[in-house]
């Protein structure tokens, strides 16, 4: 049975989620600052031996097809780009959250991580191909984290899929967010926002998590970033990588055209690149941090 949550209970669930590792948390902080330096990232990774080992293993994995083995962490990080380093650190430290089965959405274990990775890649492609003046690396990180709220409320949505789908099929004004709110009291953006605060994520990432389905409500200074993730999220679902019952069942915020310039040709090219890039990245890092 579906159980309604109140604010206090939501807070309790959020507080029971393990914190991000110090490296993951600091990496997110550093890379969110507009004026940071790649050296800062390298210095931080150096202090974490297991992260260093993982990064070296991934850069030398078959997916990247390097002829010569990279043995220095500096070179590995420059080669992969900081977004991949953030991805590895987040995947290793919160893998359980990303890999868990979302029974409340009838979505298998691992689906959320794949969806998040596709969204991250797509958000970055949206930024680079549209030429919007925001950090493409930050768009990637934001894409990776945008749906963390789903793993919080999924257990509470268990058994609700038929009701949720029926609710939004009978009333076309409603989307899956409305269904979540009606069923458990909170939608996944709100639950994710609470976790973002508990994790002390930078404000722009918290804004993305809270507003990724209606970027128009985000603070003006972060709105372009939120739109990039919004489009990335939709592109991930269109490409067949949703998280079960809610896939494609959201509204596209039409105001995106004021922030991001994308036509049908560019969109096709983005979708194609997402498939190509995903294939490469999926095989090289997994959310659980297990052997690959």
């Amino acid at each position, binding site marked *: 049975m579906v159980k309604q949550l109140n604010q206090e209970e939501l807070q309790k669930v959020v507080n029971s989620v393990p914190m991000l590792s110090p490296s993951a948390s600091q990496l997110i902080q550093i890379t969110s600052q507009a004026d940071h330096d790649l050296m800062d990232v390298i210095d931080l990774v150096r202090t974490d031996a297991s992260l260093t080992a993982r990064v070296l293993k991934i850069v030398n994995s078959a997916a990247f097809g390097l002829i010569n083995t990279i043995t220095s962490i500096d070179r590995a990080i420059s080669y992969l780009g900081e977004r991949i380093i953030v991805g590895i650190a987040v995947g290793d430290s919160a893998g359980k959250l990303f890999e868990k089965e979302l029974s409340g959405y009838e*979505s298998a274990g691992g689906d959320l991580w794949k969806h998040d990775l596709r969204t991250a890649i797509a958000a970055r492609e949206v930024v680079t191909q549209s030429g919007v003046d925001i950090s493409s690396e930050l768009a990637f990180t934001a894409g990776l984290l945008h749906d963390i709220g789903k793993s919080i409320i999924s257990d509470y949505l268990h058994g609700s899929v038929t009701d949720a789908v029926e609710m939004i099929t009978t009333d076309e004004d409603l989307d899956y967010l409305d269904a979540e709110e009606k069923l458990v009291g909170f939608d996944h953006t709100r639950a994710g926002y609470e976790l973002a605060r508990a994790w002390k994520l930078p404000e722009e990432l918290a804004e993305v998590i809270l507003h990724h389905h209606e970027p128009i409500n985000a603070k003006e200074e972060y709105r372009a970033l939120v739109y990039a993730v919004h489009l990335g999220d939709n592109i991930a679902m269109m490409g*067949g990588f949703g998280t079960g019952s809610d896939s494609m069942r959201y509204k596209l915020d039409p105001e995106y055209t004021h922030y991001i310039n994308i036509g049908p040709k560019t*969109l096709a090219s983005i979708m*194609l690149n997402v498939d190509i890039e995903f294939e490469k990245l999926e095989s090289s890092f997994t959310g659980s941090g297990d052997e690959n």
Partner: protein
Amino acid sequence: MGQIILGVGDYGASNSPADDVKTFALGSCVSVIFLDPKTRTAGMAHVALPDSSINKAKAGEKPGYFADTAIPALLAQMAKFGCDKRGKGMVVKLCGGANVMDSNDTFQIGKRNALAIKKILWSYGMGAVAEDLGKNFSRTVSISVSAGQITLSSPGKPNWQL
């Protein structure tokens, strides 16, 4: 019983009655299904984008990915099972092609995929006898080769036939 699972941009066919041909979670992608009653062969392509001109290399490597290259590739594959090279006598069905709710047209890739596929089918004198296209949900589709029966599923909905 064998299952032939097709990923994005894959295509395949079978005439073995024990087989199912299946593809998961079509979002804006469209599944093109050919059934040949004469040879009892079923084929499917999982088409992602309408037009291969954006990346010829990808089209060479994965012809099923684009509408304009998928249909010739699937026909050639089915010809290996003795089907007519130009699809004569085949039953055509289409499904998938969902769209997010977008008030301007850019994001309607599902619609553009379906249209591109229909245009190419016309050029072969083929047309779909049944379709389940559009709307805003993802579909998983499976063909049982023995019965030529197509089953669709989507979370939260009872399965249905096409």
